[in-house]
């Protein structure tokens, strides 16, 4: 399984190269990747009931492995991802035919697919989290694909912020859970449900993990990102909505149900959140007239239904959840692709501007009708079986049942607008002169998926080998059931008839009430969307206000604060609590050699000259003298590497500071400070000097611990073939630290470069004469 995931990533990596050569047929070429995955996963079907585990050690010291496990649930998702993936990739080939960035698109799409497979196959919480965040990242690039558009960037960022924050909450939950159980292996955690439910971490872990799932699966009030993700190219929307991304949250809840489910908290949280999602999005869907927006709200309805079913739990709900989800994947992907084809060939997605396309796009309409019937939950489609099972499962829970019925009514309304309105009628109306049928690449995939919905509806027993182990994994114990299209006349059927009747009313009345609703609510950005906007706009405001208060442009202010704190807090505390012990003999005048005295006097003279200097250039040169004197001290005490470094760094600092000073306006080259300032600076400098000297004397008065020195001296040559211990530590023993340090250097230099460029672009700042300096000075 790891191989399959890695190969998919690899195929993504090859995509830019191969797609440029394959040209127009790149879509067909790369559809082979998900096709191969489909065949691979389908071949696992007979062996899946017991679960197949593969483990590759990853970070053994932390107990984190690249563990993968294929059971009914994982296989259902993996097949859904790869089969829908075939349709999506081949469709993208036609949809993005003339897009010069198609290679990049395929790269991200395949990486996304690989990450998604990782999520559903991972048997390790940490691995799952890594793949989870990879889907967030790749979907950010997919949603923001048309990056020159504002709405794309807005939608992409919103999706990333919401799902990314949820992912972090989820990670915290995972860590709590993993620590409590003592392993990150999901299959082992799931087996210990009773112990987890009885432990103290149950509630926080559940809340955090549920936050991850709710944000990913766009549950109320986090649903706002999903309609905005419509800015993505249509193949992406089809994939994100039907088989991937938003289903990841549902997968997580289904996966965790045996560990975290069957409690009151679980039941009430999931049913209430799911019902709120159903009702809110069913209502909001009535306002839309954009094909993709309508479908986006229908996705939210389906997600709400799945969460409600997981919340209710039990045998029937587990079956219903799997069948409902598969039906949804098989009708939602084709519907999105139909919307994309209509947009592509007829020039708009506004349903009120389209008429009679059925006569010019017969195949697309056929796909739309097949998928639409399934979406409405009518026989003989798989959607009908799913919805009947869902009604049956929810019979004991009144609120979710009512919410689902209301949402199913809205769903039929949506289907009416997406599947019937644009195609119906004899006279063709569209912004494009002569709309025509989409190319084969854009109807073959959706047609196959939609036919799948019919086949599994008429012959549901074909789905049992997959659905039974999947529902068993959700339920947490083996289940045995048969799927049937016709259950006889029962309460769910009566409820369905009621739903259809109400749905038809909504669908027919739509053109009357939609304009009024849009006029009333279309521009309103209250509720969760408003909260998000306020939050995003608030961040720069708060940070600007904070920066204005605490940030100074003057280096001296920073030094005063830093040194003042060091002296006032650290120094004072150490002094008062007897941390600095200065032995009496340390204060006796030492007997240095004459040249040591010379260097000492040099350093002291340099320091004095620095303080007395009248210009900045003078000060920096005098400070250089102090540095060189210290370098000489290093050579006296047999630290040649340190001495060389000190010499070179001193030289470069003098050069760099001199270059900076040359760029300052003339007026700033001279110090002009008041007596108070000088006294304060001088005081702080003196005290911090004394503190450092005291610390040094106190430290050297203690006997030195030589264990490290001895270790490195002994190990340097035998272990690292080097005689210069300093260098061996830098490039071998502690090479990882060095790698981090040079990376920091590169980042810092890049920052300096960016700042200097920024400064250069601005007109030269006027000489203000004040030592505070012009704003934004180097």
């Amino acid at each position, binding site marked *: 399984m790891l191989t399959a995931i890695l190969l998919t990533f690899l195929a993504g990596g090859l995509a830019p190269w191969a797609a440029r050569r394959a040209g127009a047929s790149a879509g067909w070429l790369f559809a082979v990747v998900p096709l191969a995955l489909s065949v691979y996963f389908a071949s696992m079907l007979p062996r899946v009931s017991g679960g197949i585990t593969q483990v590759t050690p990853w970070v053994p010291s932390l107990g984190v492995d690249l563990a993968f496990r294929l059971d009914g649930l994982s296989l259902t998702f993996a097949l859904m991802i790869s089969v829908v993936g075939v349709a999506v990739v081949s469709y993208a080939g036609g949809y993005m035919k003339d897009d010069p960035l198609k290679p990049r698109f395929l790269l991200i799409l395949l990486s996304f697919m690989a990450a998604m497979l990782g999520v559903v196959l991972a048997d390790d919480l940490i691995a799952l989290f890594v793949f989870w965040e990879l889907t967030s990242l790749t979907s950010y690039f997919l949603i923001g694909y048309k990056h020159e558009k504002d709405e794309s960037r807005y939608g992409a960022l919103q999706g990333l912020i919401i799902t990314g924050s949820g992912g972090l909450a989820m990670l915290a939950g995972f860590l709590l859970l993993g620590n409590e159980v003592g392993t990150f292996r999901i299959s082992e955690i799931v087996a210990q449900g009773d112990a987890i439910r009885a432990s103290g971490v149950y509630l926080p872990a559940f809340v955090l993990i549920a936050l991850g799932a709710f944000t990913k699966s766009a549950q109320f009030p986090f649903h706002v990102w999903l309609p905005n993700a419509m800015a993505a190219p249509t193949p992406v929307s089809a994939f994100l909505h039907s088989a991937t991304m938003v289903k990841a949250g549902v997968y997580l809840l289904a996966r965790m149900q045996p560990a975290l489910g069957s409690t009151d908290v679980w039941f009430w949280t999931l049913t209430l959140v799911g019902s709120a999602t159903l009702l809110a999005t069913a209502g909001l869907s009535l306002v839309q007239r954009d094909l993709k927006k309508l479908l986006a709200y229908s996705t939210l309805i389906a997600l709400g239904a799945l969460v409600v079913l997981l919340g209710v739990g039990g045998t029937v709900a587990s079956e219903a959840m799997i069948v409902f989800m598969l039906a949804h994947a098989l009708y939602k992907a084709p519907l999105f692709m139909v919307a994309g084809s209509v947009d592509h060939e007829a020039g708009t997605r506004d349903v009120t501007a389209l008429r009679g396309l059925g006569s010019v796009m017969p195949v697309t309409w056929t796909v739309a009708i097949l998928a639409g019937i399934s979406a409405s939950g009518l026989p003989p489609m798989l959607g009908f079986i799913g919805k009947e099972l869902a009604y049956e499962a929810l019979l004991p829970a009144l609120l979710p049942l009512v919410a689902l019925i209301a949402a199913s009514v809205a769903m039929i309304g949506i289907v009416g607008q997406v599947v019937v309105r644009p195609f119906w009628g004899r006279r063709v109306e569209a912004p494009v002169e002569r709309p025509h049928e989409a190319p084969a690449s854009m109807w073959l995939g959706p047609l196959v998926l939609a036919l799948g919905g019919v086949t599994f509806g008429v012959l549901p027993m074909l789905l049992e080998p997959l659905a039974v182990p999947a529902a068993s994994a959700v339920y947490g114990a083996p289940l045995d059931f048969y799927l049937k299209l016709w259950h006889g006349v029962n309460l769910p059927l009566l409820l369905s008839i009621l739903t259809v009747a109400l749905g038809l009313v909504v669908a027919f009345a739509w053109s009357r009430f939609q304009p009024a609703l849009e006029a009333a609510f279309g521009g309103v950005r209250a509720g969760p969307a408003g909260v998000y906007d306020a939050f995003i706009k608030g961040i720069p405001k708060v940070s600007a206000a904070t920066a204005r208060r605490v940030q100074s442009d003057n280096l001296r202010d920073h030094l005063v604060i830093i040194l003042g704190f060091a002296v006032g807090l650290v120094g004072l505390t150490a002094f008062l609590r007897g941390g600095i012990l200065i032995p009496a003999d340390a204060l006796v005048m030492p007997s240095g050699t004459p040249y040591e005295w010379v260097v000492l006097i040099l350093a002291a003279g340099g320091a004095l000259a620095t303080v007395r200097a009248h210009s900045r250039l003078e000060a920096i040169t005098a400070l250089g003298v102090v540095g060189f004197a210290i370098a000489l001290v290093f050579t006296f005490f047999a630290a*040649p590497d340190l001495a060389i470094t000190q010499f070179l760094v001193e030289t470069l600092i003098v050069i760099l500071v001199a270059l900076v000073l040359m760029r300052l306006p003339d007026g700033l080259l001279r110090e002009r400070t008041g007596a108070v300032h000088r006294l304060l600076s001088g005081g702080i400098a003196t005290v911090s000097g004394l503190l450092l000297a005291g610390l040094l004397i106190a430290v050297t008065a203690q006997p030195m611990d030589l264990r490290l020195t001895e270790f490195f001296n002994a190990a340097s040559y035998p272990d690292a073939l080097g005689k210069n211990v300093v260098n061996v530590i830098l490039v071998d023993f502690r*090479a*990882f630290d060095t790698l981090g340090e040079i990376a920091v250097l590169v980042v810092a230099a890049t920052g300096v470069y960016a700042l200097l460029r920024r400064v250069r672009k601005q007109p030269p700042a006027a000489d203000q004469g004040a030592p505070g300096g012009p704003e934004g000075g180097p």
Partner: protein
Amino acid sequence: MTSLILRTATRLLLAVLLLFSVFLLLRGHDLPGGGFIGGLVAASALALYALAFGSSAAAALLPVGPRPLMGVGLSAAALAGLLAALAGRPFLTGLWFVQDFGGYTLKLSTPLLFDVGVYLVVVGVVLTMVFGLEDD
């Protein structure tokens, strides 16, 4: 900054200092020196050249700009670590290739490659700042 003495001396010093920096780099594993110090020497030499002749003349001496140089250096250091991973050892484990050629010993190793990376990063970082400040 255009004194004749500075220019003439710089021409001579540049070659000597660059040679010295490579010398420091290569001997660093056994004697005082190493990538960091060597890089600082090379960077000082080029900074001196930039002061005497202008930063565009100094930049023309380098085959690539200082910022790509940082990237190359960082990649070389990372590669030195990854080579160990390819050999199935923990990241950044030192690998050695020692060969005798009639009395002269050739010692190649991943720590040396790592040190070359450090050298290039230091040169790139310092020159990015110097050129950025000096360039007008």
